[in-house]
Structure formats: C-alpha cells, structure tokens
C-alpha cells in the first residue's frame, strides 16, 4: 500500500511521475527493442510451418548449431574461470597499472569485432607469432573449432568481469576476516562464505557471455575457415541466406538463435530469483 502511494505522489522519486517515466520507458523499449524483433518475426510470416522446420533442421545448419553452441559453451566456461579471477584481482588487490587493466577489460566492447577477428587470425595462422610456436606442437588454432572458441572468448570476457566485479566490491574484506576468525580455512571461507554471494553474478555473466557468443559474426568469420559441417557458425548460415535474398530463411535461422538466447536468459533470471530468496531466508 505504501509503495502504491509513493508511485502516485512520487514524493520519494527523483524522476517525475510514474506515469510519464513508465510511458517513456515503454515507448523506448517498443521502438528500439520490440519493433526490430517484430520485424524479424514479420519476415517469418512468409513461411509455412513445414518450410520453417525444413530450413532450421537442414543438415548443414544443424552442424553449424553444434559448432556454435559447443564453442560458445567452451568460451563461456573459460571466461567464467578467468573472468572470476580477473574480477577478484581487480577488486581485492592494489598494484601499479590496476586502472589500466580495469580499463582494458572493456576493450572487447569498444573494438569493432572484425578488427579483433583479423588480428586473432593473423596471430594464430601457421605463419603468425603464436601459430608458429603452436603448430610444431600439434596445436592448430586458426581455421579450427579452437579458433572459433578463442574469438568468442575474446569478445565475451567483459560480461563475466563486469557482472562479478560490483558484487565482489559490495562484499567487504571483513566478511573473509570474520569467517577466518571463526576458524574457517581459506578454502572453506571461499566456498561457504564468498562463493554463495558471487554465484548469481557469475552465472549471469557466464550466461551473457554464452549468449553473446551465439550471435557473434565479425570476430569469428576470419578465424573460422568456414568449412561446411566443420567450422561454419550459425551467423554465417544467416549471412548466406541473406546473400541469396532469402530474408525469410535468414529470419528463420535467426529466430532459433534468438529463442535459445531468450530461453537461457529467462532461465537464469528465474533461477536467480529463487537463489536470492533462499539467500535472504525466503524474504528478498
């Protein structure tokens, strides 16, 4: 009741009236988010259900799902581990160049991904700096599945770091100290005291990284090699359809990516809601 009253009067809010703020928000979301998505599904209306099914289950397209999802999962898991470590180092330690490292974390957001892709391909090709060292050892990175995962890891690392970092900042070092003064060992304090607070952020970050990787095109296309059934990603399949002026087919494949992403994000949100409630003793 009290909450309702404050919506009406707006006395405790900085922004003017709920009606106006909400109205503008909904309008903005409609124009920027919902309209393009509606457009996408509008294209799908040109297909019958059987056609739609045939397009999204075609062998080569299915193979591209496998490549994309597999590589995205690997990239997301790697980023979960190293993103957590990076966030930890950035929050808990003071060292020269910390600001620089912090700023560097956002680079994959700012850098055109095609530039990253070309650079990675140059590095890991058999004539490149890294490729020259790895190839004699039997590791081929460029033009394989590994290269795709690597490019995905590059473009999605900020998602993990930037979601875990603020949560860790909110968790004062006194919490660790309290745990230890009560007799917990390092590992127990980490597992039982710190991790429960970080879980939701870490899972969200990893999920975002995964979803981002599913749609990535620019960074991957140069290092993938694009061989049918082996290193073709789903975004390339969409590009191929567009090249054939087949907008409906492109939208059909895009809708699969969209659906997987949406389902995953929704699942994470629901799980997180439960988690938070449990953490706060059923209240939150």
């Amino acid at each position, binding site marked *: 009741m009290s909450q309702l009253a404050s919506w009406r009067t707006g006395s405790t809010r900085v922004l003017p009236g709920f009606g106006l703020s909400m109205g503008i928000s909904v309008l903005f979301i409609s124009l920027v988010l919902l309209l393009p998505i509606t457009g996408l599904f509008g294209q799908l209306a040109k297909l019958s259900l059987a056609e739609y099914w045939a397009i999204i289950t*075609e062998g080569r397209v299915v193979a591209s799902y496998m490549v994309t999802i597999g590589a995205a999962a690997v990239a997301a898991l790697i980023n979960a581990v190293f993103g957590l470590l990076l966030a930890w180092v950035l929050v808990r330690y003071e060292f020269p160049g910390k600001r620089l490292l912090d700023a560097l974390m956002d680079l994959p957001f700012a850098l055109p991904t095609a530039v990253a892709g070309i650079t990675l391909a140059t590095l890991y*090709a058999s004539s*490149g700096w890294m490729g020259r060292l790895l190839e004699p050892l039997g590791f081929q990175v460029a*033009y394989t599945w590994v290269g795709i995962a690597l490019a995905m890891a590059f473009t999605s690392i900020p998602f993990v770091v930037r979601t875990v970092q603020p949560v860790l900042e909110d968790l004062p070092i006194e919490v660790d100290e309290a745990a230890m003064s009560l007799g917990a060992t390092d590992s127990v304090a980490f597992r039982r005291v710190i991790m429960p607070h970080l879980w939701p952020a870490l899972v969200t970050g990893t999920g975002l990284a995964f979803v981002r990787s599913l749609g990535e095109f620019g960074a991957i296309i140069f290092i993938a090699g*694009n061989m049918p059934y082996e290193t073709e990603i789903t975004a390339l399949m969409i*590009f191929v359809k567009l*090249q*054939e002026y087949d907008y409906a087919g492109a939208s059909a494949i895009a809708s699969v990516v969209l659906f997987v992403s949406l389902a995953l994000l929704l699942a994470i949100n629901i799980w997180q809601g439960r988690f938070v409630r449990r953490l706060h003793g059923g209240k939150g």
Partner: protein
Amino acid sequence: MSMPTIFSRSLIAIALGVTVSGTVTAQERELLNSSFDVARELFAAINPEFQAKWQEEHGEEIEISQSHGGSSAQARAILQGLRADVVTFNQVTDVQVLADAGLVAEDWQQAFENNASPYYSTTAFLVRKGNPKGIESWDDLVQEDVSMVFPNPKTSGNGRYTYLAAWGFADNEFDGDEEQIEDFMRTFLANVAVFDTGGRGATTSFIERDIGDVLISFESEVNNIRREYGSDDYEVIVPPISVLAEFPVAVVEENAERNGNSDLAQSYLDYLYTEEAQRQLAGFNYRVHNEAVVAEFADQFPEIELLKVEDVFGSWDQVMDTHFGSGGVLDQLQRR
C-alpha cells in the same frame, strides 16, 4: 584572446565554411555509383577523368560518389532505398534483382554494348614463386597435396565464377558425364583450405597468412595483387580454359530520374566504353573490347578459351537455382 573567444570564433568560422561549401555543393549535381568491393581504386581513377570531360563538354561541375561493398549487399541496399544512380556490379544476377524489382529497365542487358558489360575478366591462379606444385590448369588442382584458397561461392560472386570455371573445365574434359564431373568437383572443393566470405579475405589468407598453394580469383585481382605484393614472390597462371566473368552496368532509372541525373548516368556508363576509359580499365588488368586498346595490351592478356556461363549452364537464374541455392548441387557436393 581567451579560450572561449577562440572557441566561439572557430565555431563561427566552421559554420560559415559549412554554409559556403553547402551552397556550392547544392548547385553541383551528384552522381552515386554503387559498385563491388574491389573496384574502389578503379573508379577512383576513372571518375576524375569523367568529371573533367563533362565539365569541358557541358560547362558543369559534377560530383561523383562511390559506394562499395559485396555486389549482392549493394543490390540489397538499393532495394532498401540507397539512391544510387548507376550500378557497376560483378554479377548479372545482382542487376537482375533490381530489374525484377522495377528499379532497372527490363531489357538492361541490351541498353549497352556487350551485354552491358564494358569490361570483363576471367578466373586465374596466383601461385607462389617458382610454382612449386607445377600448377598449369584445373586438373592440377585436384591432386592430393594441393590446397587452394578462393572465396565461398555461397557468399561471393568471385567464388561462384571459380566454381563455374572448374565445372566448365570438367564438363569439357569428361564430355558432359555428370558423375565424373561431380567427382571432380567434390575433390576440387575438398582441396579448399579456407572459405573466406569475399575476394579480399581470400587474398589476405593466401598472402598474409601463407595459406594454400594457389589463390583463385579474378584475373584482374590476381594481377593487381602480384603487382602490389611483389612480382618476385608470386606468379600468375591463366589456365587455358576458364569462364568469362562479365561486369554488368546499368542505370537505376527510378533513382536517376528522381535525382535529376538521367542524362548524367547514361553518359557516365557510355564513358566506360570510350577508348580512354578502356585504356584505364586495361591498366587495372581488366579485359576490354576496344580493339586499339586490346592490341596495345595484347601481351598482358593471354588468349584462352573463355566459356560463357549462359552457354554451359543456361540462364543465370538456372545457375543460381540448381547450383548455389539451398540444397543445390554445391550443397550436395559438400554434404557429409
């Protein structure tokens, strides 16, 4: 002078500059040429010549803008409203799409000489110094230890020509025996090391990343690469039989009319057939029709048998449907 004054004065200066140049360009007519990816340098060289000629003949200053990208992507942009006055593409089908949408005249291929293709090319090979694998023609490419780079036929017109040229060769070699042709093509496609999405990407893979023994691309592109990256490191091989790659041009009538550029667009494309323009085109390693220029550049373009796509495969529409469409022959050849 205090900072704010400097700032405001320069602002005024910029504002004045903008209005002045704005009024100048308002009087100038602007022609937009929408073209394929690798023609950037070509038209950058041709446009000033045409501008000078137009100025001389009509006493009018004009501006020519260029827009480049994959040929199909450019066609899509025009379908979606890019107001290009003329198109100079590397794919007949990309102009046909515009004709089907009513933006270009239905009989556009008759509007200019030589199927509305003022210049043409073919597919050729670039090999590393000394040609270590001894590659002379298409059948050398299906050997086990040869790896090739050419763009994906699904996403690149350039790659499509390569596929069609190899098919045309096999068609000749095996006297039209479907099964043998398809076997040949399957091996051919399996020898590809990287399927880049466009011609320039394939060039990068071959040159910068040292991938593959052969790069297959347009003869013009291959020669330009060799000139740019050192004629000592690479050799150009033009196979004795290949496919004729047309570079069709057309006036986008609806846009040209709306922009008041109909006459200009027509003259611009006519200009590409003049001797001076043809000489420039030959300088960029494109094959041309003007006999004087052909004679002049004879040793640059070896005489080979050029297959016409329409003769071997029927219409381009058929080619796209049977070979490159979803589930088409290309898909079947690459199927696992």
